[in-house]
């Protein structure tokens, strides 16, 4: 097609607005590999939303997968929308311009679906912003025939209850499996002329789909849940999480979007496996993505080649949890180094165990002087690492660091959590001691073979218990306790011999408390989230914007006691708000793991021993390895 013949897209925003906001490229669409369709030629228009700023949203792999998968259908047009930055938010409000999708620049209001991926709790007010600016009633019950169906997905959908008021539907699990069925129902419903509720009623029967308005929670006097059940016959009492069992042949975008401006993850992302065999007890991803499923290495090689060619990126990142556990990693990385070397492409390997192989790879693809090694021991003492089932030992860390130092590295980053179950002052101090030992290992190298000082950076975050983990019953602590923990570590660092080589960073504790409330909340929290948004809370994940006092006011005014959700220890018999979801791992397994944690007993990884977590029922991935 001749370029001149193409009709120029008209932006939804005037030049004046685009010139007066920060980074107008966030709102114009038209990126390389953006899908352009004629909206009048499709039956379903789907607006896919990541409720955070463009640069974050564009870095998310899940959306790229679904965007590609939906747009392969000729009857669906999937477009994107991200949270307008506060500067544009103000203008859209003042000038009453409806929020629009990037591709067609059409208002979200005219779409059939608004799909929102919910990746972290701190984006909940941004979800309300999207609805508000789109002119969609914030409460699902107030929506009519002219409004899109709002559907949520992603990891936070494993406890959808705090958001139950705002969504028409949730999709629980991996998007690859049930959307075709949902779209099919939708098309039939659209032709039928029946009301909104009728579509939801049908959708509620689709595997993985949860329609909160068909369920009711009853509470005990103490505030805990007495019962949770469907309000109509034919609505399933339990929602099965969806799993794509054949990842090798599952749809994967070969032409991902390439943004004009730099985004957080500005590189090709190749997913090599889903799930994790390790079973760290704090980690939700390690539980809900079970069973671990690998992609075929030959397919990955082909995809890597195509992705680089179709994007023009000069960097490729291998994406998975604990990528060292991918069984053909060596073969894949060797291929990439050979293939990419010629194309001058960098390879980034997050979540890699530090050993001889990974150090060798890193020395080939990175500048040793500039790069740093990352360890995530998560807890300072071996006792506490056993509690959380983090397999990493002191010996392994020191050996890895030693090898790296001998190889020329000087920078080490260490990640820990504070506020873990059973944690004591000794465990906290052990963080500083471990850092000191690593530094000491560096200074063991004769002076003439090292250059200057090493740099050990400790970062701690505060632990937030998440649904579907063995720690889902664990209590949290008041804000003051978290800050006390950080102070203990800081003091301990100052007492170390190598304190000049150690730096310590920690986070604010306010946001931890809020994350804790929302993560394990129930549907009564909806009114507090709404109130917080009305008070102006937005971009809560951004420390510059987070306003703790407004949130606390919102809880107070809506009769919510934050402590009920955070510092209270839950009984193992309690009905938890997310119990109606079948996430694969059984409650019995989680209880076993919780007990073992409190006893400081480790659980072997899935390849060494099956621990009967429940994910075996999917009959695939690591659960059936070596069984043929």
């Amino acid at each position, binding site marked *: 097609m001749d*370029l001149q013949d*193409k009709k*120029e*897209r008209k*932006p939804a925003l005037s*030049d*004046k607005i*685009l*010139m*007066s906001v920060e980074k*107008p*490229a966030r709102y*114009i*669409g*038209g*990126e*390389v590999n953006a899908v352009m369709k004629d909206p009048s030629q499709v039956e379903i228009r789907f607006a896919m939303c990541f409720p955070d700023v463009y640069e974050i949203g564009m870095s998310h792999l899940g959306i790229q997968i679904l965007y590609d998968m939906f747009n392969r259908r000729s009857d669906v047009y999937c477009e994107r929308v991200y949270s307008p930055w506060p500067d544009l938010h103000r203008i859209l409000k003042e000038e009453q311009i409806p929020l629009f999708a990037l591709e067609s620049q059409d208002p979200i209001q005219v779409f059939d679906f608004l799909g929102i991926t919910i990746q972290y709790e701190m984006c909940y007010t941004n979800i309300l912003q999207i609805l508000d600016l789109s002119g969609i009633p914030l409460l699902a019950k107030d929506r009519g025939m002219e409004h899109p169906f709002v559907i949520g997905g992603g990891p936070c959908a494993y406890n959808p209850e705090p958001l139950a008021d705002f969504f028409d539907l949730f999709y629980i699990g991996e998007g690859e499996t049930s959307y075709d069925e949902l779209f099919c129902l939708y098309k039939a419903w659209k032709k039928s002329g029946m009301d909104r509720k009728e579509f939801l009623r049908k959708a509620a029967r689709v595997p993985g789909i949860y329609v909160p308005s068909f369920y009711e929670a009853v509470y005990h006097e103490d505030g805990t849940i007495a019962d949770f059940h469907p309000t109509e016959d034919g609505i399933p009492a339990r929602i099965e999480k969806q799993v794509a069992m054949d990842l090798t042949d599952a749809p994967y975008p070969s032409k991902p979007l*390439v943004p*004009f*401006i*730099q985004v957080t993850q500005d590189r090709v992302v190749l997913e090599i496996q889903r799930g994790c065999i390790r079973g760290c007890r704090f980690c939700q991803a390690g539980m809900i993505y079970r069973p671990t499923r690998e992609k075929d290495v030959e397919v990955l090689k082909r995809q890597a080649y195509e992705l*680089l*060619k*179709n*994007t*023009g*990126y*000069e960097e490729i990142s291998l994406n998975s949890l604990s990528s060292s556990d991918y069984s053909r990693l060596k073969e894949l990385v060797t291929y990439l180094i050979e293939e990419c070397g010629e*194309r*001058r492409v960098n390879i980034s390997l997050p979540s890699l165990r530090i050993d001889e192989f990974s150090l060798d790879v890193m020395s080939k693809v990175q*500048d040793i002087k500039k790069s740093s090694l990352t360890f995530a021991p998560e807890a300072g003492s071996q006792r506490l690492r056993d509690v959380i089932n983090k397999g990493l030992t002191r010996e392994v860390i020191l050996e890895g660091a030693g090898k790296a130092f001998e190889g020329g590295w000087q920078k080490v980053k260490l990640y820990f959590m504070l506020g873990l179950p059973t944690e004591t002052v000794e465990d906290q101090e052990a963080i500083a001691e471990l850092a000191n030992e690593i530094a000491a290992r560096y200074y063991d190298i004769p002076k003439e073979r090292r250059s200057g000082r090493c740099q050990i950076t400790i970062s701690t975050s505060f632990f937030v218990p998440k649904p579907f983990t063995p720690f889902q019953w664990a209590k949290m602590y008041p804000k003051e306790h978290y800050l006390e923990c950080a102070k203990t570590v800081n003091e301990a660092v100052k007492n170390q011999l190598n304190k000049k080589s150690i730096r310590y960073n920690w986070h604010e504790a306010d946001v931890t408390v809020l994350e804790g409330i929302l993560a394990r909340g129930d549907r009564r929290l909806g009114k507090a989230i709404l109130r917080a948004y009305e008070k102006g809370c937005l971009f809560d994940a951004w420390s510059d914007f987070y306003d703790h006092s407004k949130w606390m006011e919102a809880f107070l005014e809506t009769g919510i006691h934050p402590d009920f959700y955070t510092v209270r220890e839950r009984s193992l018999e309690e009905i938890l708000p997310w119990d109606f979801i079948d996430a694969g791992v059984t409650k019995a397994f989680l209880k076993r793991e919780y007990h073992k944690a409190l006893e400081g007993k480790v659980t072997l990884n899935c390849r060494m021993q099956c621990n009967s977590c429940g994910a075996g029922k999917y009959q695939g991935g690591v659960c059936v390895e070596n069984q043929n």
Partner: protein
Amino acid sequence: MKIRIKFRKYGVMKFIGHLDTMRYFQKCIRRAGIDIAYSEGFSPHQIMSFAAPLGVGITSDGEYLDIEVNSTKSSAEELQSLNAVMAEGVEVVSYRSLKDTEKKAMSIVAAADYELRIRDGYEPPKVDYEAAFREFFDGPKEVFITKKTKKSEKTIDLKKLVYGFRIFMEQDRPVFYLKVCTGSTDNLKPETVLEAFYAFLGEKLDPFCIQIHRIDVYGMQDGALVSLGEMGERIE
């Protein structure tokens, strides 16, 4: 081998700034499979330089970048592969080889010309443009204006830095043509000239009321301004 690429930037691409445009082209070159040369060292980068940065919001028919390649196909073939991987809003219009002795575009840029139009919805000053032009620019021997930079104020003579200035009417609205000194020293923005003209008319120029369009960029060759696109040769 040195190659000069000329491209147009239009539509929403005008909102993509200079650095992002550079990154955009690095990826385009890879997607198009151009056999570009890389610098030596631990982190090799494509040998590529842009002639004159274009401000955000400005469209252009004459943007240039120079690259170095190990091998090349014909101009027609490379143009086709490049345009096959462009986003809407960028079109590559020429691909020519330069002599090895030829200087980089960015080092010889001397002038650029522009068209400035009043946007729809804004009213231009109601004056006799012909007379005003004669009085403001054409008549006087010197036209001094004060140019404010971040650090200082500088008095400059527009007669020395404006190489071409015309005002013509289209549907009763003025269109300003300006050819101005461009480059690292004595760089003059076209809107600075228009601002001075408005001030002369006793008006204040609202920066949002004009759409600036760059027509072409020129280098100095043997004492004359030559379009960067006329240098070098088509590869057959």
